[in-house]
C-alpha cells in the first residue's frame, strides 16, 4: 500500500514540477505566474506545460513570463506575446478560430448527434406498440400467473 502511494505521488505532475525560485514583488503576481505557467504549453516537449518541463525553451518562457508579469503586463498581453511567437499551440485553452473551431465545438456536435440518435431510437419504439391482448389471452396469462404464485 505504501509503495503504491509512493508511486502515485511520484506520478502526479506536481511532483515533477521544476524547482526554481522567483522573487515576486506581490503574492498576486506569484499566483498569476502559477496559473499562466500551467496554461502555457511547452513547444518542445509537447504534452507538458512550461511549469513542468525541464526543456531549455520552457525555462526561457518561464523567465519571459516572470519578467513580463513584473513589468506589469496583463494576462491577455502575455498570452498574445506567446501566441505571436509560438501560435495557438502554446495555449492549453486556445482561442476559438478557424483552426481550433472543430476542437472546441466537436463535443457539442457529438452531444447533439447523440441526442438525435437517442430520440430516433425511442421514437421508433413508440411507433411499434406492444399488441393488445385479447380477452382469452389475458385469461390464459392470469391462469399461468396464479399457478406460479403461491
Amino acid at each position, binding site marked *: 500500500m505504501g509503495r503504491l502511494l509512493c508511486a502515485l505521488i511520484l506520478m502526479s505532475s506536481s511532483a515533477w514540477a521544476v524547482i526554481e525560485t522567483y522573487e515576486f514583488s506581490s503574492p498576486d503576481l506569484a499566483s498569476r505566474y502559477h496559473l499562466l505557467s500551467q496554461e502555457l504549453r511547452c*513547444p518542445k516537449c509537447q504534452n507538458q506545460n512550461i511549469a513542468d518541463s525541464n526543456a531549455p*525553451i520552457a525555462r526561457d*518562457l518561464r523567465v519571459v513570463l516572470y519578467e513580463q508579469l513584473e513589468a506589469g503586463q496583463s494576462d491577455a498581453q502575455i498570452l498574445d506575446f506567446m501566441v505571436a*511567437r509560438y*501560435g495557438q*499551440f502554446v495555449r492549453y485553452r486556445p482561442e476559438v478560430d478557424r483552426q481550433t473551431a472543430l476542437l472546441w465545438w466537436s463535443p457539442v456536435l457529438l452531444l447533439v448527434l447523440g441526442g438525435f440518435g437517442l430520440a430516433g431510437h425511442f421514437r421508433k419504439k413508440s411507433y411499434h406498440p406492444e399488441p393488445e391482448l385479447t380477452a382469452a389471452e389475458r385469461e390464459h396469462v392470469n391462469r399461468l400467473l396464479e399457478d406460479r404464485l403461491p
Partner: protein
Amino acid sequence: MRVKRFIPLAAFALLALLLFKGLSIDPTALPAARLGQPFPDFSQPELMTEEIIGASALRPRPALVNVWATWCYSCRVEHPYLLTLAEQGVPIYGLNYKDDSEKARQWLAELGDPYRLNIADGDGTVGLDLGVYGAPETYVLGPDGVILHRHVGVLDEAVFERDISQWFTTSARVAQAGSVEGGE
C-alpha cells in the same frame, strides 16, 4: 430500411479513413506562427565583427536563416550541406542560438563558414521572437524580407529540393551548381 443497414459500415469507413489519415500526421510538427510576417527586428552583435546589426543586414534576399549552435549535434550533421548550398550561391545567414561566441568562432574556423554573417544570439532573444524551439531550424526569407517557410531539423538535399528550392531557382544558382559539378 435498406439504407439504415449500411450506417454502421459507413461509420466504420469514416472512422477508418480518419484514423488512417492520423497515421501520416507528424504530431511533433508545429505550425510556425511567424510565417508571412517580416523577420522580427533585432539589435545583436555580429559573431565575427561584433558590430551591432539589425534585420536590415540580412541582405541579399531571398536567403536562408539557419539556427545553429555548437551544443547541437544535428547542426554538425547538416553543416557540410550548408557549405554546399553556400558554394552554389544560396545566401545563408546564421543565428548562433544560445551559444558561446568563442566556441562558435572556433567551430566555423574548423568546419568552414557557410554564413554570410552570423547573429550572435547568446541569450536567445532573437530566437524567442522568431518562435525557435530548438536547433537546427532553417527559415526561408523572401525577397521582401518576409518569412516564407520554416524547416525544423537537419536540412539536407532531399528537404531542400522538396520544400525550399522553389524560392532559389535563380539562374545564378543553376549556373554555379553546374560549374561546381563540372569542377569535381
